[in-house]
């Protein structure tokens, strides 16, 4: 099924280039349908402003509008047959009337539709406001203006799909060069989104955002049976273009992965010895711990019960009294949030409320310092912020996958501060007299982000600084507060790795993406269980 270089010669390079050309979609700016211009075009602005005006005229105290034009190209395998090419244009208007939100969205870009969406959204807000009073105060934010293009090196939509398939095929061919190795999953996905935002407070900004991700797995075969597998962990979702593939030494990384899988397979298997152990965890495990137990728990809407009927609430359930006092972990634990890190999955110039996100410190030296907020939710903390002499402002965490969804608070990029010593994962194992080493732990959390079960096939017994066995069928059972209190050491600056992650939230459910950076770490007293053992 894959395309050979001979095919390339036969059908010509230009054929490959042709399909990368953007396809025209139409918008109606008031003079009938015309091809959609770049998002910075003043006609898009006029459309957005039409929605805002109509909403104000219908009685909205506040209104904002989003227009998005999204292109997605998925390569589900290294073949042209696997390519899925999707493009859509949508618009959504959100309004506030007497403290109640209304929202309407559709696939039509036209002045009439902008007006219809605005009045529809206002009628929704009005209906909701018939009951009790609901105070909504949007914390002030300076009006956003301008255009921002995420600085990607290679726009994946300007690369011929033929070239990308060829590249994927070459990776598979490289991995299969050795007789015992085969390539498994080999896919990638790219998105570019042009987004315009306007609000009744005078904001108008446009952005062009990219997201790229991929998956590549290899399998080790003995006697024609697959005995172990491994996957590249450097292709997780990122705010990058095609350079996600081309600017990384993927072949070297595949060789490293082979070494790791080989080492894994050669270690003698061993049944689980249930108990508590010191554990050296790799950066990916630590990133997932930070994301699932600290990131999710510090989403303010979740902590206050707005997600109770969906994903659940938070064990940090009393934000107002916990802020600045609640101890989450030892003094070495500092977790930051940002949406400005180049190449990270949640990076933007403005969030979906036109707020320029600031960098925040969520956990400062072990103490709960702040929550992830939007313009509405930041106001819920106004008193605490004032008491602690912190500015009352949104951290810019509002977002939605496209303009068709109303913005919710989603996770920013998270960064766990490294330790001061130059420690890495291998170093952490070397320092362990007796315990376990854990790689790529996957987590199942409860609905408050507190109790978790972690599973992976990469849990090793460590004795005198060396891995001596792989433990089969083991799981890690933990409670977030105890886990972090048992944090013994964090890896150094050079050991920090970044992983893109996605999260689902809300009703209707929305998927959002963010990056989490963390060093490897050593935890004390981690509980190992036999996952498949029933009571």
């Amino acid at each position, binding site marked *: 099924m894959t*395309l050979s270089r001979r*095919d390339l010669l036969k*059908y010509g390079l230009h*054929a490959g280039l*042709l*399909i990368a050309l953007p*396809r*025209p*979609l*139409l918008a109606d700016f008031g003079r009938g*349908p015309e*091809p959609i211009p770049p998002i910075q075009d003043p006609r898009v602005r006029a459309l957005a402003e039409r929605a805002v005006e109509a909403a104000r005229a219908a009685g909205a105290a506040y209104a904002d509008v989003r227009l998005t034009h999204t292109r997605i190209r998925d390569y589900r395998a290294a*073949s042209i*047959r696997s390519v899925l*090419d999707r493009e*859509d*244009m*949508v618009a959504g208007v959100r309004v506030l009337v007497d403290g109640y*939100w*209304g*929202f*309407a*969205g*559709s*696939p*039509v*870009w*036209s002045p*009439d539709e902008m007006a*219809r969406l605005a009045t*529809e959204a206002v009628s*929704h807000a009005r*209906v*909701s406001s018939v*009951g009790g009073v*609901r105070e909504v105060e949007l914390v002030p934010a300076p009006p956003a203006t301008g255009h921002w293009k995420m600085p990607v090196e290679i726009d994946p939509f300007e690369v011929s*799909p033929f070239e990308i398939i060829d590249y994927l095929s070459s990776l598979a061919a490289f991995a299969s060069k050795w007789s015992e190795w085969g390539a498994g999953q080999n896919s990638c996905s790219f998105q570019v989104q042009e987004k315009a935002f306007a609000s009744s407070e005078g904001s108008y900004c446009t952005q062009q955002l990219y997201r790229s991700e991929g998956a590549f797995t290899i399998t080790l075969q003995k006697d024609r049976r697959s005995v172990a597998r491994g996957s590249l962990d450097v292709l997780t979702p990122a705010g990058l273009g095609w350079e996600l593939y081309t600017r990384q030494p993927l072949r070297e990384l595949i060789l490293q992965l082979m070494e790791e899988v080989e080492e894994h397979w050669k270690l003698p298997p061993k049944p689980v010895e249930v108990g508590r152990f010191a554990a050296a965890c790799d950066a990916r495990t630590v990133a997932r711990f930070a994301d699932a137990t600290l990131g999710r728990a510090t989403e303010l809407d979740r902590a206050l019960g*707005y*997600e*109770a*009927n*969906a994903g*659940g*609430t938070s064990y940090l*359930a009393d934000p107002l009294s916990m802020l600045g006092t609640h101890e989450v972990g030892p003094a070495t634990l500092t977790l930051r949030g940002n949406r400005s890190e180049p190449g990270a999955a949640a990076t933007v110039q403005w969030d979906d409320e036109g707020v320029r996100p600031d960098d925040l410190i969520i956990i400062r030296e072990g103490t709960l310092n702040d929550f992830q907020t939007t313009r509405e939710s930041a106001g819920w903390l106004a008193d605490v912020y004032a008491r602690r002499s912190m500015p009352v402002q949104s951290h810019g965490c509002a977002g939605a996958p496209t303009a068709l969804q*109303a913005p919710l608070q989603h996770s920013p990029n998270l960064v766990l501060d490294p330790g001061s010593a130059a420690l890495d994962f291998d170093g952490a194992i070397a320092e362990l007299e007796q315990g376990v080493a854990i790689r790529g732990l996957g987590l*199942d959390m*409860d*609905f*408050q982000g507190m*109790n978790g*079960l972690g*599973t992976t096939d990469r849990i090793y017994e460590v004795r005198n600084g060396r891995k001596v066995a792989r433990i089969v069928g083991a799981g890690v059972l933990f409670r977030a507060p105890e886990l972090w209190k048992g944090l013994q050491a964090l890896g150094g600056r050079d050991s920090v790795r970044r992983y893109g992650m996605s999260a689902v939230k*809300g*009703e209707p*459910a929305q998927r959002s993406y963010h990056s989490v950076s963390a060093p490897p770490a050593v935890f004390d007293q981690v509980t190992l*269980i036999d996952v498949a*053992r*029933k*009571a």
Partner: protein
Amino acid sequence: MAGAESERLLTSTQCEELLRRARGFARGGGTTTIEARSWWQGELRWGRNRVSLSSDRRDIAVRVIRRVEGGEPTIVETNQIDDVSLESAVRAAERQSKLGARPGVGFGFFPKLPAYEPYSKGHIWSDATYGLSTEERGETARGMIEPAEAKGLVSAGYLEVRGATLARLGDDFPELRSAPHAHWHMPYTRWTHAHCSTTVRDATGTGSGWAGSSSYDWSAIDTTALADRAVEKCVASRNPVALEPGRYTVILEPQAVADLLEVLLRKLHQRESPESGQPGPWLLGRDEALGLWRSKLGLKVVDERITLEHDPADPLLGILMSLTEQPEPVRWIEGGILTNIGHYFDTDVRALEGRYHLRGPTGYRMSGGSTTVDEMIATTRRGLLVTRFSNIRELDGVSLLSTGLTRDGLWLIENGKVSKAVKNFRFTESPLFMLNSIEQLGEPVPVFRPARAEGAAPTPAIVPPLKVRDFSFTSLIDAV
């Protein structure tokens, strides 16, 4: 863009016109299949006893599947339906298809595919759902919040009504067609779906109650009863005590049964897997004499009181043409015996009668009994009453051993009475074990089916409460 302004959904005429228009843009021979979907959703969400968002959304999705002469089939999607957008989508698919050309490669051997008549008797459209006004949605939410607020409790919830349409027109493999309606060619179908759920917590967060329901017909959802049940469960679940993990006799409410059953339902697809020797719950083993792999079809896999079936004429189930080429009653498990697994055309159950494509279960009805939950409780010396499960994950694809959590109401039963609220547990158990350890069955009722992607088809389920012995709880979860 035309049409979308005034109509929430594409009409049959609009769809037909759109499909023909899009097909008309195809150049260069080969085959073209166009699929058009449209959806609309009216939504209302609340938290902390106030409506947090009321919304109305709609979209269109046109999928072009194009294979030029000698090329590969490729897919391009757009949500714009004007000439220029459709034509450029078709062109893009053609360019891509040409790139994948494999001259001289045919499509191989395929037998002629069967004809079937479009099935129109299923109950899948409700004017009550499609016509539920914004005002009525707001009223409903307030009616559900009130009982909670009146008791000083905190209510969160969500209600959604949706409508969707689907049509597909294609000319793939004309040499294989025996009738206008087959596989790639789907007549215009429209359906509705409604669901509503609410979680009520006490102000200190020590108790939580949940209730939810879904149906194609909004008027079948009793929102007052849902609100009352969630409040009742919240109040009764406050200040839970910790219990030792272990094996307990459990009374699973229908929702809990359906939650765990989902792990098994997912395995009723792809009969080809066990029959090619892939490990799974239905692989029996290798038949060396015949030189083939045997599945467990025809064997008893669960308690003989269990039947899992789907009758498209069932007023609580209905069926969508998009989900089946075989709109006839199908039994997946009958009297505990595995009788059907979804399969593709080539894997034919009724080999002598013609081929058909049996997808896995899209909705189902499970057999039950006549014991009420109250009677189950009264006959239990010591056990647990479970409202629902959450965060379920399969641990082993063969035994279907899974882990997950109890959520929103767990109680200890002692000597025939509910004695106290209990802290949540993590369980480690298999749905096959559950269905083989049944003590009593109750009356099957429709359960809440979680909303899937926007515009996706519903998968209704009618499930009884069960009393099951020796259910395994492996650790304590102190989250509420």
